[in-house]
């Protein structure tokens, strides 16, 4: 009996005995991973490393950090990203819950709205907000029609104008992971809570939300990080006198002599993104939510 088991495990044992063969691609891992890793090193790591070289060329860091406009824009960008991700987290969770508990017809309508939003071009959505904000646009027509306002509305190109649009753009990134997490709730937990007499609020607070936490956080962190570097929407809707970091980088992108400053600003932005991302990954295991 012992003998047969031993013979049967020879192939497996043989594989284990030569880890070198495994490392050299006995199962193809090496052949499959070398091209994409080379690709990412050449096209992601090298260009970002090149920014360091550029920034050091012409004392870019001291120029960037000495610039009051830049320091103000960092703060403004952080406030925008934090506000947008908190709002998106709250609204996105509510929407995902509504999707899960709505009667079938309503749930389908909500799903259609979500995917229409998700699949509409970012520029089209931003353009829609621009139209909405026109001095005599829809907001004005509605308010005027109701007899509430006579003067044209002036929200376009104010810092605040970017906020609703950013929340709008980012909503799906929270709704989708949270909805996926809701689908994975264990019905037995919910039943146990109900049978043991937990009311709706207690069930929500102690059973549902704790299990959704990692999905919610994965979405919120993604939104925060994406908002930090967002260019198009704040550029088109926001205030020209109160630019975000990305807009400042964009402004000095092609200006001769400002390359090193732009590179330094890019690195500061990148550093914030990486710190947030790594910290969140440690605490909430964000990349496992996506990568599995």
């Amino acid at each position, binding site marked *: 009996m012992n003998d047969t088991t031993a013979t049967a495990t020879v192939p497996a044992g043989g594989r284990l005995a030569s880890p070198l063969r495994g490392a050299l*691609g006995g199962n*193809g891992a090496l*052949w*499959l*991973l070398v091209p*994409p890793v080379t*690709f990412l090193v050449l*096209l*992601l790591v090298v260009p*970002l490393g*090149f920014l360091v070289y*550029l920034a050091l060329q012409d004392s870019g860091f001291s120029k960037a950090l000495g610039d009051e406009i830049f320091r103000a824009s960092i703060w403004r960008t952080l406030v925008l990203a934090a506000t947008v991700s908190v709002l998106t987290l709250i*609204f996105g969770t*509510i*929407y995902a819950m*509504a999707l899960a*508990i709505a009667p079938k017809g*309503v749930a389908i309508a*909500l799903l259609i709205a979500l995917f*229409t*939003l998700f*699949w*509409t*071009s970012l*520029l*089209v959505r931003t*353009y*829609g*907000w621009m*139209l*909405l904000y026109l001095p005599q*646009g*829809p907001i004005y027509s509605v308010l005027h029609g109701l007899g509430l306002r006579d003067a044209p509305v002036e929200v376009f190109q104010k810092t605040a104008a970017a906020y609703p649009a950013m929340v709008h753009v980012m*909503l799906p990134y929270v709704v989708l992971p949270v909805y996926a997490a*809701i689908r994975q*709730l264990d*019905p037995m937990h919910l*039943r146990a*809570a*109900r049978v043991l007499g937990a009311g*709706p609020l207690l*069930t*929500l607070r102690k*059973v*549902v939300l704790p299990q959704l936490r990692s999905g919610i956080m994965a979405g919120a962190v*993604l939104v925060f990080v994406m908002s930090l*570097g967002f*260019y*198009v929407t704040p550029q088109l809707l926001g205030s020209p006198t109160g630019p975000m970091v990305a807009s400042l*980088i*964009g402004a000095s*992108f092609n200006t001769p002599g400002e390359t090193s400053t732009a590179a330094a600003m*890019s690195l500061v*932005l*990148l550093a914030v993104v990486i710190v947030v*991302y*790594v910290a969140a990954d440690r605490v909430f295991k964000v*990349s496992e939510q*996506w990568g*599995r």
Partner: protein
Amino acid sequence: MMDRELRDGLGLARIPFLVLGVVLGLFMLVPLAIVVPTSWTAGQLLEFPPKGFSLQWYRAVFDDDTWTGPIMVSLRVSLFASLLSTVMGTATALGMRRLMQGRTSRVMRSLFIMPLAIPYVSYALGIYHLFLKLPSGLADTTLPLILAQATITFPLVYVVVAGALANVDPRLSSAASTMGARWPTILWRIELPLIKTAIIGGWVFAFATCFDEATLAIFLSPVDQTTLAQQLYREASESIAPTLSAVSTMITMLAILVLGIGSLIMGRGTAARRGGNA
């Protein structure tokens, strides 16, 4: 089953969720609900509510090479970029599956997900200046843009394909290997056929993302080759006109059509695989 338990467990607390959900659903549709009607105005100016109904602005889009040129550039750039990211992303998902779970694989996974998080402006700056250092005017072609878009869509394909691979029984590979199949055979005959729909889905998703991507295009595309998203940005920041609404409406319809069909195909694939396992 879960839905019913969740409904019962939440009792009356469902109502605020539903009401807010419907309000948010309407909020999601607001910008589109404004863009679409402004495109069929019969007047000369962009107005809301529109004056009358006419398709004149749709005709104007096709009469004018302001738009037809960029559409072709976008199609070409997105096609190359998405094919590249699909090949790379699929190879990564297949390779990571063969790797032992451990520190190395965690670090690698962080590298693979990173393009999702990097600020595009910073990335564009690095790529642009790197290509300026390279010989023979490579910076004046669409190559930097194609490579940059392939890099940022790479994680999307990787995540989609890795998700599908997680549902493929690893014993299939072991069984094939015991019977003497080497890894290329396993890859070609077992794994790729099983994840075919996910690869196509990932590619569609990557293509749509590249097509819609504006920031990299604004900074990287050569002067004489404007992409559609970049052209939309340019026009929107200069002057708002009904043609812009007409173009926007058409792109949106097309995107919803393509992505909707793509997800239906993918949904069917997933359902079929689940059915097969059960």
